[in-house]
């Protein structure tokens, strides 16, 4: 009987900029049960990070949670007072961030940074915290933890820094750990190690995790359920294997297309989804994905689809759904996106400075 830890109900978080209101999170509903690992997937700018920051009420200016409820063990986070939310952060729910170099205070040693996470909530005394830090670092497999405790962040390697951040996140044994792109800033071999570590910690400690990423490969190895976001909304959700085998939303399908898979023929080269993410202050009418969708029909341009159940435990927000699309159409779409990505490659070669 899984206990629901986190329940987000119809969350709307908006940014009030001089150019207009940006609907970063536009009606998101999700839940995380104790011990499970939820993957939140999407391109940059789709609202996944802001959703996570909303849970901890760390949305930066000029953003604000406008409406909705965020229930943690039944208590609404959006209504918590200052002292309550302070207790909540780093304690019940902890978050680790993308770039461990910039996410750690460069002028303070690693040990004290982790210690203060513990002493801030009065769960440990200074002494206890000090010893516990070494244990935590050992648990996240930082070699030479006893002496490493006195190092500064710049003396750690990228992978070790991320481990230290994970240690910091787990210091107070939170029920939920939110990890925002924990491996993006690391190189590939280290990525694998970190994911391994997180898997292990989930097993050993039973910590629930919310893994935010745009990398489908990570999701496959770590998560039990995934949620796909686009333009501030959830467009598909369901158990990992189901989604990977049978994605129903064209966006999910396109994302999976762009992951190199060992079992597929060489001809399916890395393709990217054509077009750019929508302007969230001025989104397209109807389904927000329709301008880039390879299977768009007229209805998509007029009315936004609701999130509907497409299979057991699987929801998708689409009028068309992959299972109704013909093989022809799929091949056509594949060819088209292949062509456009080849064109993009050629273009890249003619402008040598592009990307500099």
């Amino acid at each position: 009987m899984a206990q629901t830890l986190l329940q987000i109900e119809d969350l709307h978080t908006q940014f009030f900029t001089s150019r207009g209101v940006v609907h970063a999170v536009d009606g998101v509903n999700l839940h995380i049960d104790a011990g499970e690992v939820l993957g939140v997937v999407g391109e940059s700018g789709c609202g996944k990070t802001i959703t996570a920051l909303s849970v901890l009420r760390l949305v930066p200016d000029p953003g604000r949670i406008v409406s909705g409820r965020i229930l943690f063990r039944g208590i609404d986070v959006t209504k918590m007072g200052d002292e309550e939310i302070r207790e909540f952060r780093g304690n019940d729910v902890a978050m680790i961030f993308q770039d461990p170099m910039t996410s750690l205070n460069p002028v303070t040693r690693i040990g004290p940074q982790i210690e203060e996470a513990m002493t801030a909530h009065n769960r440990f005394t200074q002494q206890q915290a000090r010893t516990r830090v070494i244990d935590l670092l050992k648990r996240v497999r930082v070699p030479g933890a006893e002496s490493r405790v006195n190092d500064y962040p710049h003396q750690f390697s990228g992978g070790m820094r991320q481990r230290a951040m994970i240690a910091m996140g787990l210091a107070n044994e939170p029920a939920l750990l939110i990890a925002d792109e924990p491996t993006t800033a690391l190189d590939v071999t280290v990525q694998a190690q970190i994911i391994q570590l997180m898997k292990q910690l989930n097993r050993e400690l039973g910590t629930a995790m919310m893994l935010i990423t745009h990398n489908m490969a990570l999701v496959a190895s770590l998560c039990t359920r995934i949620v796909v976001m686009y333009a501030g909304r959830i467009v598909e959700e369901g158990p990992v294997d189901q989604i990977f085998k049978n994605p129903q939303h064209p966006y999910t399908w396109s994302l999976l297309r762009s992951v190199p898979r060992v079992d597929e023929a060489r001809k399916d080269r890395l393709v990217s989804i054509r077009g750019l993410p929508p302007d969230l202050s001025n989104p397209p009418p109807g389904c927000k994905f329709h301008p880039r969708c390879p299977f768009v029909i007229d209805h998509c341009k007029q009315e936004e689809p609701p999130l509907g159940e497409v299979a057991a435990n699987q929801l998708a927000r689409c009028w068309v759904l992959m299972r109704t699309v013909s093989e022809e159409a799929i091949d056509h779409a594949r060819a088209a996106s292949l062509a456009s990505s080849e064109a993009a490659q050629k273009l890249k070669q003619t402008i040598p400075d592009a990307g500099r």
Partner: protein
Amino acid sequence: MAVIEGRPRRGALLPWFGALSGTRGGALAIFVGRRILWMIPIVFFVIVITFFLMHQAAGSPWDRTGGRQLSQSVIDNLNAKYGLDKPEWQQFLIYVWDVIHFDFGLSYQYEGKSVTSLLGEGWRYTAVIGGLAFLLIVPVGVGLGVLAALRQNTRVDYATMGFATIAASFPNFVVGVLMVVVLSVTMYKLTGGSFFLPSSDFALDDHLIMPVITLSLLPIAYTARLTRASTLDTIRQDYVRTAWAKGLSERLVVIKHILKNSLIPVVTTLGPTFAFLVTGSVIVETVFNIPGIGRAFVVAVESRDYPMILGTTVLFSVVIAVANLIVDVAYVFIDPRVRLT
């Protein structure tokens, strides 16, 4: 076993050197040592330039305007007494030798008084006022800057930065004069007495407020602006977000995460600030008639008292160089990312 014949054993010193620079403490000592050694050419340079300039001056220091010219024999005696009859390069070397022994020569203006004693009389005033100004600048400047940054875009922010911008543009003497005009004259008219009037006798405990404020106003403004910019920059950093995410109290986040980082660039400006206080003392002491070294310098310039000019310049330069050294060393302590090699 190879025998290296005939080569000088310079290497004997190097391994020790290498080992020393391995530890941070050792590297620090070497760093400080090098910086101290570097001060020598700087001061030497100052002496050379100033000395050279002094000796370009037309006329001799014994020219008296409006009144009887001294007789030639008197002039010759004076020249001999002050060593001015020797060739220039000799005078220079003698001077350098003297300086090393803290002897700056005899003043031309005040018969028989040595420059060193004149400096000794004046330095207390300059030091007290400069010191108080410095003690005022750091908390006020930094405090205002932090306040403005934490309350960005509110009225507090605009008010402090507006004040800072204006204050930063008004030179010392302008501020001083304006202060005197506004305060003294108003007070005078009100009280009928000489309240806060810059009078010729100046005791160390009287009337320090105005000179200190005048001297420190511009550095406060500058420091406030810099602190604000640096703090605003720091607040946006990822590690501050991490600190909030850990559930730390506002006090902890501000002090240990924000300020600890944002004040680092401010420290680097303390050296130039100090230099500014030194040159500012020249002006402020003139405005407020304070018998410190700054005013003595101006008087020396006006009366072409070259030993005094030289001596004061050298003293000021040394003081500034030392202050810069202290600041640089302090910087190494506060920023662990700095590499010493």
